């Protein structure tokens, strides 16, 4: 990929990738750092064949791995062992978008659920594609996504009903 092609690809793909990183990490500054690192790794690695769709998926995979590395740093310990209350992301909904309900609801979800939900419902990736991005088994994704979606729908309905205890 030459410089001009990369500039075009960056313009087209960066907003989506940044939105994913902001939503999943709940931290705009961290998302910007990971965004830069993702593109840097993308450029240094051997890029996949198959054009921009595959480049994009590969980029999401890099970003997902970087997020995982971030959560696995010693200050956080192992992701699976951390209690739910410590994984609640700060609510940055007012900074990043107009969605009143989604921000607080996302903040109540576990990071892995946020990843799966965003990839499936915002990016529209199939279970197979999510499996390639996250490294999880397709069958697990099916079940995890079902549970996450159910929880998210419950939280959205609660917020819609005006339950302020959520915020």
């Amino acid at each position, binding site marked *: 990929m030459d410089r001009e092609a990369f500039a075009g690809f960056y313009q087209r793909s960066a907003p989506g990738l940044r939105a994913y990183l902001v939503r999943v990490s709940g931290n705009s500054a961290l998302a910007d750092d990971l965004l830069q690192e993702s593109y*840097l790794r993308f450029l240094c690695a051997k890029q996949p064949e198959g054009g921009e769709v595959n480049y994009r998926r590969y980029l999401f995979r890099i970003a997902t791995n970087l997020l995982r590395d971030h959560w696995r740093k010693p200050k956080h310990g192992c992701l699976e062992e951390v209690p739910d209350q410590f994984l609640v992301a700060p609510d940055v909904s007012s900074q990043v978008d107009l969605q009143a309900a989604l921000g607080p609801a996302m903040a109540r979800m576990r990071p892995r659920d946020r990843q799966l939900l965003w990839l499936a419902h915002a990016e529209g990736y199939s279970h197979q594609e999510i499996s390639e991005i996250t490294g999880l088994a397709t069958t697990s994704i099916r079940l995890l996504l079902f549970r996450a979606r159910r929880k998210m729908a419950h939280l959205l309905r609660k917020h819609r009903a005006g339950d302020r205890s959520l915020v």
Partner: protein
Amino acid sequence: MTFRTCVYEKELRQALKDGHWPAGCLPELREHVQACASCSDLVLVTEAFQQARKHSSPEVPQTSNLLWWRAQLQRRRSAAEQVSRPITVAQTFAWAVSVLAALVSAISQYHHGLRWANWWSEVAPLRLFHLAPIVTQNLDWNLFLLIPTIGGLALVGGVVVYLVSEKS
């Protein structure tokens, strides 16, 4: 929590992905969504995420040029490291051989009573021109010392020559 897949889920997912929901869908599907908890969850969550995606900030750091150059530098650095790796290995190996040869020679001399002077007088300049008698008489000793030394010198010499030529 029970996990069941609705038969309409695939169709509904596609309609949501293509933006055909709800106007572009059959009334039958719309009625089903109202009655099915799983499908209504799917619609609610997908619509929320699609809106969030649509309204997410389009502004990203304008650093594509900087990233490009940083990647080029990183690539060059890793390529240089890859090229110099065999040289580093050769250097380490040469040093190891030299040290081993020195150790072996020191140990053998110790066993021979540290008679450096005597040994040297045995390998007198005159005898150097007649290697055959030396080899036959002190075959084990001379070969033991000579081969590693020559090998070590060859390796170190090769590396030094390579480094000098590369610098120049």
